[in-house]
């Protein structure tokens, strides 16, 4: 093994783990990444490639007709290479989110939508009532709804009931980088739901992604943790490895922890 061996970033074989499957679409990577807030488009695309993510989120916004800045993302992000997951970020009502979802679907890529209805501008916590309402309508219209929600079991159950194809509880507030503040509820949501559970928002660094995946969830979604890292591409490599590490550790089943030391080497056979 050389010090430049790229193999230090784990690759997952079929024997180690199956794919992430959402509404019958299979993804080899359990990491989903956003495309916002990168300093340049080149860094964004390099980071996304380094992360190994196949599903990437995008937002719907007005075209800037004055051309003060070029914001269109599809010049940089090939829809053949990545699975685009449009979001309803910035919406504060069920009606608003439904409108954005319909606009996104009209772009013609897929029926998936990351539903997000913000209830409070200071914390960006979701309006769960409006989220459930919008999810129900969108699911009835044939959308594959992946709903961003609080780490609340009852809301997660309702979102599953109304037809969401994935439920996405937050680790902590969007863009906060606080990590998983409530692993217990994340585990409970995962334990009780049949649809995939993807932890969305709040991951700050690799250990957060690893700890998230160790809870047994199906995937993790992040944006700021990469975009706001000093070196987004290097952090993307770290997040890829951490997501795999956490997933495999969960599947492997950790040892029982105990508050006493137990030697790893034999007690017998010691010299006099």
């Amino acid at each position, binding site marked *: 093994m050389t010090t430049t061996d790229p193999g230090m970033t784990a690759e997952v074989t079929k024997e180690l783990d199956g794919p992430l499957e959402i509404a019958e679409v299979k993804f080899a990577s359990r990491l989903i990444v956003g495309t916002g*807030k*990168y300093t340049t488009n080149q860094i964004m695309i390099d980071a996304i490639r380094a992360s190994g993510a196949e599903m990437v989120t995008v937002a*719907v916004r*007005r075209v800037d*007709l004055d051309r003060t800045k070029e914001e269109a*993302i599809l010049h940089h992000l090939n829809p053949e290479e990545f699975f685009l997951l449009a979001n309803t970020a910035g919406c504060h009502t069920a009606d608003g989110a439904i409108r954005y979802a319909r606009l996104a679907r*009209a772009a013609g890529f897929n029926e998936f939508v990351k539903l997000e209805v913000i209830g409070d501008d200071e914390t960006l916590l979701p309006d769960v009532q409006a989220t459930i309402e919008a999810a129900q309508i969108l699911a009835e219209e044939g959308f594959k709804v992946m709903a961003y929600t609080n780490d609340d079991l009852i809301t997660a159950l309702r979102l599953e009931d109304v037809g969401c194809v994935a439920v996405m509880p937050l680790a902590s507030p969007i*863009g906060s980088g606080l990590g998983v503040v409530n692993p217990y509820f994340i585990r409970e949501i995962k334990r009780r739901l049949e649809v995939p559970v993807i932890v969305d928002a709040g991951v700050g660094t690799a250990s957060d992604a690893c700890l998230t995946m160790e809870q047994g969830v199906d995937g993790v979604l992040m944006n700021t943790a990469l975009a706001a890292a000093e070196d987004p591409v290097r952090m993307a490599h770290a997040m890829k490895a951490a997501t795999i590490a956490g997933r495999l550790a969960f599947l492997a089943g950790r040892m029982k922890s105990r508050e006493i030391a137990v030697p790893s080497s034999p007690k017998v056979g010691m010299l006099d």
Partner: protein
Amino acid sequence: MSSTEQIQVRLNGKDRDITFGHTVQSLLEAIEINPLAVVVEVNREILNRDQYSDVGIHKGDTIEVVHFVGGG
């Protein structure tokens, strides 16, 4: 009406005077937008791309032209 008559529409949140007689397709061309790269909503109704050449723009219409940008 003459083809040079100006009508006011609301385009992406701003009032704009445009020549009367435009379809969505010709308006997008006039403002140098690739129709394949955007989604258009007229008076809160989302259009399919194959409607762009058929839907005329009328005085007072509210038109939104959106696309995908970076987001999380």
